[in-house]
């Protein structure tokens, strides 16, 4: 079984939002909404400042409060890559998953269903990279399989320092920020 994940190199990321734009086009995300976004964390006092720029999205967690709380089974873990997906036809737009997600990664699409990052599973199944990874001009994003010991992502996680978002939430998120 594959377990897809992403490692994002914050040393190289400039926060240009190309990932956000590419996702919007690829997935026809409606105006006013985005499935990924940039967060800049500023620490320190001028001029001794430290920045971390994070390209954020659904963390495709190992433990999925969004799936567990779904009353209709619309939110589910995909067989391929353990990617967290929403079946639009089953979704009733009740927002339980929006409340359950510690990362605020979901929104209600104007068409009435819970919407979020799919890791571009439609591309990945064809052997392509997710749109955000594919477009990134700094090559700071790496996508791969955590269950494959030889994957680039496992090599990066073995050789670089990294952190995940809100590890205390107990979700075991699969977006890793290399620092």
């Amino acid at each position, binding site marked *: 079984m594959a377990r897809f994940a992403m490692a994002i190199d914050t040393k190289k990321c*400039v926060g240009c939002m*190309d990932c956000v734009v590419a996702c919007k086009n690829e997935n026809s995300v409606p105006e006013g909404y985005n499935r990924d976004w940039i967060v800049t964390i500023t620490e320190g006092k001028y001029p001794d400042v430290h920045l971390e720029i994070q390209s954020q999205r659904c963390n495709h967690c190992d433990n999925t409060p969004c799936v567990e709380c779904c009353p209709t089974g619309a939110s589910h873990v995909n067989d391929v890559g353990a990617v967290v997906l929403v079946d639009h036809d089953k979704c009733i737009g009740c927002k339980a998953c929006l409340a359950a997600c510690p990362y605020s990664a979901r929104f209600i699409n104007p068409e009435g269903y819970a919407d979020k990052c799919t890791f571009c599973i439609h591309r990945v199944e064809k052997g392509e990279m997710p749109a955000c990874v594919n*477009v990134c001009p700094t*090559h700071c994003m790496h996508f791969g399989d955590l269950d494959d010991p030889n994957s680039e992502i496992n090599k990066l996680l073995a050789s670089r320092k990294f952190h995940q978002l809100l590890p205390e939430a107990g979700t075991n998120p699969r977006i890793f920020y290399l620092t």
Partner: protein
Amino acid sequence: MNAISRRKFLKLTGYTIGAAAAASSLTPVIKGAKKINKEKVKGIQTIPTYCDICFWKCSAIAYLKDGELWKIEGHPNDPLSKGRLCPRGTGGIGAHFDPDRLRSPLIRTRERGEEKWKEVTWDEALSYIAKKMNKIKEQYGAESVASFSHGIGGNFLKHTLKAYGAINFGAPSFAQCRGPRDVGFELTVGDSIGSPERTDIENSKCLVLIGSHLGENMHNSQAQEFAKAIENDATIIVVDPRFSTAASKAKYYLPIKPGTDIALLLAWMNVIVSEKLYNIDYVTKYGFGFEQFAAEISSYTPEWAYPETGIDPDLIRKTARTMAMYKPATLVHPGRHTTWYGDDTQRSRAIALLNALLGSWGSKGGLFFPVSYSLPPYPYPAYPTSTKEKLDNPGKKYPFASEEITTGIREATITGKPYPIKSWIVYSTNLIFALPNIDETIKAIQNLDLLVVVDTIGSEIAGWADVVLPESVYLERHDDFNMSPFKQPFFSIRQPVVDPPGDQKPNWWIAKKLAEKLGLGNYFPWNDVEEYLDYRLKAGGLSLAKLKKEGVFVGEKKPIYIEEGVVPEFGTPSGKIEFYSPQLLQAGFDPVPKFTKVEEPPTGYFRLLYGRIPVHSFSRTQTNRILMDMYGENEVWVNQDIADKWGIKNDQYIKLKNQDGVISNKVKLKTTERIRPDCVYMIHGFGHTSKMLKGAYGKGASDSELITRYKTDPLMGGTGMNVNFVTFETEV
């Protein structure tokens, strides 16, 4: 490009129609444009073209799904994009879908600037323009029609105007942007930096950025190479009053006091020369006047620079030694938008000299020698000759200007001297936002008999026009080839991907039809632009059909560094790198750059600085709904301590008032530790006032409006614009 890689590329990008349709059903991202592709090909179709959202001209592949424009990606063979566009390029499809696009030719019905129009046919609009132009020619001479343009799209229109007899052409890219930089390098090494810049960022071991905010400024190749330099563990030194994104990647951040960069540059050179850390062989071989230069800078110690710049002398020494340690693979980036304080050519000259001391000019990891393709030009009839001289720079007032000065044309339009200017033909440049002091621009407009604006959107300058001509966006038109000089010779095609949604026309068509109306049809012997393109390609032994399919031709690699055998030539009077410049001395200027203090902000005021954000280009992308979804209004950055003192809070709206009492539109505060307390910063291009720009009207504030003062560079006429001060109006 070899045969194998091309096959692989064709396979990868799915040139066969219908291959690999995407899985999910998709609705159009943005409402506003209707059916676009006549043929409505089922499935996925890919068409290569090159981008126009900024002027880097990256090659791209546009994707149509069932005949509708879907997305656009970088062209894998393109040396500029290397298969990846910047966010503006990726969001470029929003230009096609933009609901605020100009749709039909317009003629003014009320006073100029009231934006009251009647829609007319192309024939009416062009006849109107031709009639007025012929009258101006009769009364004042063809030289009294001036033109401003930005980008390759202006080429065909310029051709028409030159055929008509016009001689005054300006682009803000010189006197309002990169002019001082290019002249500074011309005076020093006899060559300019050009665009795309000749910076070998990816191979540099030490990268020095002075106010250059790579990563926020997303010129694609530079941003890509910047990330590569980070990956390579290059030592990055950033000098900026603002803690930029680039600063966050730097080993050394120098929080310089605005306007004192020359002092820092002189101190750096002082350390490198006095400690004999410079590239002695290089300087001996290529340098001229080094002894005089060395004597001149001997007093500019880091201790001398400290009270001016606020930079610790130890840090100045440490960074100078670091630069020297990595020479010649140390790149002191020349920047791009360099019109800051009016002494900008001398600052750029100091940057050129520092690169020369390190031996970076011509070296790998420094500033390379660009190479390019050339195709024979189309054999047009000769243009008429004029007895009058260009009027942007009368009497060579600015002796080293190497291109036309826009603000010089504006000045002549106001004064009518040395001869009157009666018409402006403006192509795709929003002069109201691009030139400093809007009142002067409007004053000049009052003297015109004809103001024509050709653009895709109703910019502020379009609002002042007599006739507005709607151009199709780059995804709907051909333009001339892109043959930018870069690391490898290449050229690329721009070609229509979709049809325009209204009565918009490509610039080549507008130029040709206008020429015909003016009785100059013989200057356009071709019927269709493809005939023109085909002629030029055939003359170069190449095929249009092939280029249309492949998008880019990449030539053989050629040497671009001294290390690879390039023998440098210096186009200076001495034929060498002029550390000391006799021609500057002769013209009455400092032969070695000197530091002079800039005016300080009055109490309670802050220096207004401006820059870019990755998702917008100038003031031309604020109605692109995809890009506006990324960043929909600008903010003003204010140091946290200053905000606390004023009792103003993050996200609160305020207004800015400048030293001349001009008050901005309301603008959101960004209180931050990322900027010095003596200046504020905003993204250029917001605060639109044209009613035609519904999606952008009134969003954020305009820095241009607040730039009422400018300081003209005496060497080349560039307008230094970082000389304005603002205070806060907290009641909005």
